[in-house]
């Protein structure tokens, strides 16, 4: 299912044995008087499906933005695959293999579903201007395009979007848009995906199928996921470890069982301060 051209068979997954794939250290972000993220620190180990939870306003989406370079942190450091990516531009971060979905799905409305998906793969030789034009070079672009097309159809079929392949993405329903977001990031052949509420509006059967697939990708290809979800069942049943964010900082992290039993987590969700 992953596009051939960007897959290196010998590479099972990045991240050294000793260092976590994603390391976030003391990142902070404030807007005027409002502190969105306040010294958050956590690690994500390679090959895990890690959950990120926290009440509204805890800073989850902002944290994603800080990690992927959509915003730059006022302080702190982000390391991915052993490299400092704190000041990287979003496209640089994505090129390293760290991609994300958006909480409010950002569809390219006036492009078809297939176009949206075909946009995603990295290292498309046709994205250079001259290769698209010069006759012999264009033939090679066409070859790569055919391979990508096959991968695109497989991805769409798996996500049950194939009947919408020729439709403008702007006509999709909310749940379908979320699936399209997922299709796109999968097509980039990433090492790690930050998923921001990817299952909102998705029907339960498909949801199970998707989660199974995430586990498959994790196990077989070493993909790593950091998942933000409001559905606690999903988090508790599928994620390990789980990181809890509250008021811009990490409150606690651990296995689902540990987090479930931590009183401070409950208090945080019910609102109000939490004693350290």
């Amino acid at each position, binding site marked *: 299912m992953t596009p051939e051209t960007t897959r290196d068979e010998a590479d099972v997954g990045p991240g050294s044995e000793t260092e976590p794939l994603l390391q976030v250290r003391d990142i902070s972000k404030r807007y005027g008087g409002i502190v969105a993220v306040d010294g958050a620190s956590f690690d994500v180990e390679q090959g895990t499906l890690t959950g990120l939870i926290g009440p509204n306003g805890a800073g989850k989406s902002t944290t994603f933005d800080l990690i992927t370079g959509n915003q730059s942190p006022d302080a702190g450091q982000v390391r991915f695959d052993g490299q400092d990516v704190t000041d990287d*531009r979003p496209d640089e971060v994505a090129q390293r293999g760290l991609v994300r979905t958006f909480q409010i799905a950002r569809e*390219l*409305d006036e492009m078809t579903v297939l176009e949206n998906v*075909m946009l995603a793969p990295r290292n498309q030789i046709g994205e250079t201007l001259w290769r698209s034009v010069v006759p012999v070079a264009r033939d090679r672009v066409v070859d790569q395009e055919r391979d990508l097309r096959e991968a695109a159809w497989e991805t769409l079929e798996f996500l049950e979007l194939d009947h919408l392949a020729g439709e403008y993405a702007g006509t999709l329903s909310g749940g379908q848009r979320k699936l399209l977001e997922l299709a796109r990031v999968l097509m980039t052949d990433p090492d790690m995906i930050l998923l921001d509420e990817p299952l909102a509006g998705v029907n339960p059967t498909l949801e199970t199928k998707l989660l199974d697939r995430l586990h498959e990708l994790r196990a077989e290809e070493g993909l790593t996921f950091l998942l933000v979800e409001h559905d606690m069942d999903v988090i508790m049943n599928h994620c390990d470890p789980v990181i809890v964010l509250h008021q811009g900082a990490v409150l606690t992290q651990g296995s689902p069982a540990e987090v479930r039993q931590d009183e401070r987590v409950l208090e945080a969700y019910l609102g109000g301060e939490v004693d350290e």
Partner: protein
Amino acid sequence: MSSETAGGTDGRNDAVLLLGVALGLYALFTVVSVLLGYDLNGIVNTLRRITFLSAIYAILVLALNLQWGYAGLFNIGVAGFMAVGVYTMAMLSTSPTSTFPGLGLPLPIGILGGVLAAALLGVIAALPALRLRGDYLAIVTLAFAEIIRRTYRSPVLEEFSIAGLDLGTGGSRGMSLPENPIRIIFYQTPGDPASDPSALGAAIFDFSSGLGVQPSVVVGWVYAIVLLVGVAGVYWLLMRVGFSPFGRVLKAIREDEVVARALGKDTRWFKIKTFALGCALMGFGGILWRLTGGYVATSMFEPIYTFYIFVALIIGGAGSNTGSVIGGAVFASLLFQGPNFVKRLVTEYVAVGSPPNTLFDAIGALGGLDVTPLVAYTLSDVNVAALRLVLLGVVLVYLIQNRPEGLLGHRKEVASPIDLGERDRQEGQS
């Protein structure tokens, strides 16, 4: 698979469409010319004129379509890049003996230099584009074009020399241009307006004169045909650019640049290349437009020309290359030349007499139930030109309110070199 998923347009259908529009316009203007009592020479010349203008506009609209229709970059400095193309060509190729001298280099070098200079300015203009959103970019590109125009117009640069070479821009007086290159085919001394025809030229002119068509019209038509080849070339180029992964990223930039970057595309380079290529083509179009006119002046590059190209693009359908060509042709023939022909038709068949001096006189005559002065006033050349622009403004507002996608902008033109809807049935793909 359904044509909805087809990558690229259906090439054959588009060719038919373009041919149909061309023939339709030719038929219309032939009829109009006949009604106006033109002889064969007049008819042939009319068709030449609309071919010339349609081809020029097609090239310029295609260039703008790449920047705005595909990548969403709002460049209203088109006229400035045209100016750079023409003036650079002039400074390179105009004879050193002219009032405002150029270097006298061969014309192909001048044209190449003009196109490259326009591309370079395009790269410079792209730099603000990396940071600015739509309307700010519009203001910056307009300011850029005005800076260019005023620089060329400045008396300071009217004449100057670099390293002993005399150059100049002609300031507000303009510069002369090299002669029409087509003349080489037809005349022994192309640079001399009174030259004898060459052997080939004489043969052709004998034939055409026999039909009643004058030599200048023949030369003009050959130039127009060269322009059509130019349009075909630019069209071919931009179809390949648009229907490719490169074009796909451009569309993504227009739709939502954040997504493009989140998928690893360094959008800065795409914008710079789009500006470079588009502006190079604008310089090219400017050169082709003014080359046969004998001289260049900054009045040819006022912002109004940019707005003409914008209207043509909106009419044809932003985002569609075929639409750009059709829009250019429709604009140049119907909106631009059209009113003049309407005026001539009316004055041919209706006696309106000479126009009154002012509109108020004309309206005053209405009191006596005499409509003729008002009609005569409206149809004077100056006023037809003014009303043409009023019409343009109204058309622009109407289109933006009611049909912003123009003629072909609604078509699904999937940015891929292949038909994405088809799947390879051969197996072993894994």
